C-alpha cells in the first residue's frame, strides 16, 4: 500500500469513527432525557391546561428547551446545578409560617442531580433540538442596545412590577418566580421578549400574568436582564 492510499484509508476510518462517536453521544443524550429527565420534566408537550396538571409539575417543561435556554448555560448548569426557583416548582407546596410573612421551607426543596461533563453536553445537544415554538420566537426582534442598572431596575420594578415575584439579586425580590439575576445568561433574548409579551402563549396556566408590557419596555427588560447577569455577584 502506498502512502497516498494509506492516508486515504486513515482519513476514511477517522471519519467513520467520528460519525459513530457523534451518533453515540446523540443517542446517549436522548436516552438520558427519556430515562432520567422525563420523570420530572415534560419533554414532549403540551403544557398543562389545568391546575391539577400544573401542580403536579416537578420541574420546568423542557419540550421547548431549544427555544428557551442558551446552550452554553444549559451545559454548564447541568454539570453544576444551582437553585433557580427559590420556592421550588409550586411555591404553595413549599411554604411555612414565618415571623412576619410566609417563608420557604427549604427542607421540602429537592436538589437537581448533576451530570458529568460528557452527559451534560449530550443532553444539552438533545434539548436544543426541541423547538416547537419557532413561530413565537420569529415574532420578536431584539434591538441592540444597553441600559444602566438603575434605569433597568426602575423599569423592572416601578413601571412593570416584575420585582414582586422575581429576585434581582440573591435575597432581594419576590421568590415565587424564578430568580432573574442569571436570566440574561440562562435564556435566549427572544424568549425573554416573547414570554414577557405573552406568557400564556408558552404556558397557558403559568403563574406569570400578562402585564401587556409595551414594546419599548420589553426591549429594556431584555437589556436589563443581560446587564444584571454580567454583574460580578450574579455571574455563575
Amino acid at each position, binding site marked *: 500500500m502506498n502512502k497516498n492510499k494509506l492516508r486515504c484509508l486513515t482519513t476514511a476510518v477517522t471519519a467513520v469513527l467520528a460519525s459513530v462517536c457523534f451518533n453515540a453521544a446523540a443517542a446517549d443524550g436522548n436516552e438520558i432525557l427519556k430515562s432520567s429527565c422525563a420523570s420530572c420534566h415534560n419533554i414532549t408537550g403540551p403544557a398543562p391546561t389545568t391546575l391539577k396538571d400544573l401542580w403536579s409539575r416537578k420541574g420546568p417543561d423542557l419540550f421547548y428547551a431549544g427555544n428557551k435556554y442558551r446552550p452554553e448555560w444549559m451545559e454548564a448548569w447541568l454539570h453544576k446545578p444551582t437553585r433557580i426557583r427559590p420556592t421550588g416548582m*409550586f*411555591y404553595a407546596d413549599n411554604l411555612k409560617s414565618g415571623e412576619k410573612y*410566609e417563608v420557604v421551607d427549604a427542607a421540602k426543596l429537592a436538589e437537581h442531580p448533576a451530570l458529568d461533563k460528557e452527559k451534560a453536553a449530550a443532553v444539552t445537544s438533545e434539548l436544543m433540538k426541541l423547538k416547537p415554538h419557532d413561530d413565537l420566537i420569529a415574532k420578536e426582534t431584539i434591538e441592540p442596545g444597553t441600559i444602566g442598572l438603575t434605569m433597568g431596575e426602575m423599569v423592572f420594578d416601578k413601571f*412593570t412590577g416584575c420585582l414582586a415575584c422575581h429576585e434581582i439579586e440573591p435575597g432581594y425580590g*419576590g*421568590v*415565587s418566580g424564578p430568580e432573574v439575576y442569571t436570566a440574561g445568561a440562562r435564556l435566549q433574548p427572544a424568549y425573554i421578549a416573547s414570554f414577557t409579551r405573552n406568557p400564556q402563549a408558552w404556558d397557558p396556566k403559568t*403563574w406569570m*400574568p*400578562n402585564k401587556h408590557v409595551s414594546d419599548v419596555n420589553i426591549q429594556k427588560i431584555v437589556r436589563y436582564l443581560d446587564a444584571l447577569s454580567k454583574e460580578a455577584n450574579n455571574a455563575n
Partner: protein
Amino acid sequence: MLTNRATLGLVLAGALLAPLSATHAAESAADNYKTYCSQCHGLHGDGKGVNARDMSVQPRDHTDAKAMSARSDEALFKVIKEGGLAIEKSVLMPPWADTFSDEEIHGLVKYLRELCACQHGQ
C-alpha cells in the same frame, strides 16, 4: 321527526363542544386563589404571602373586613381583571385578564367576600 333531528343536532353540538369546554373549564375560586393570589396575599388571604417582604406596597389583607367592605364587587372585579393601576392602586397588583375568564373572576370576588366575611358597605 323534527324532535329527532333537533335531538341529534344537540348531541352532535354537545360532542363538538365538549372538548372545548374541557380545555377551558373554569377552575374553582379556591384553587385559583391558592395558585395565583396567595404568592402575595398569603395562603390564608391575610396579606402575608411569601413575596410580600420586599414589596414597596404591601398586599391587601383579604381578611380585613373594614378595608374590604370599602370596595364594591365591581371594583374588586376590575382590579383583578385589569390590575392595581386600573383603580389607582399599585402596579404590583397585575392584571389577570389573560389568566382568568370573567366567570372565574366573579368566582374570586365571591371568594374574597368569604375571606373577609363582609359585603360592600357592611
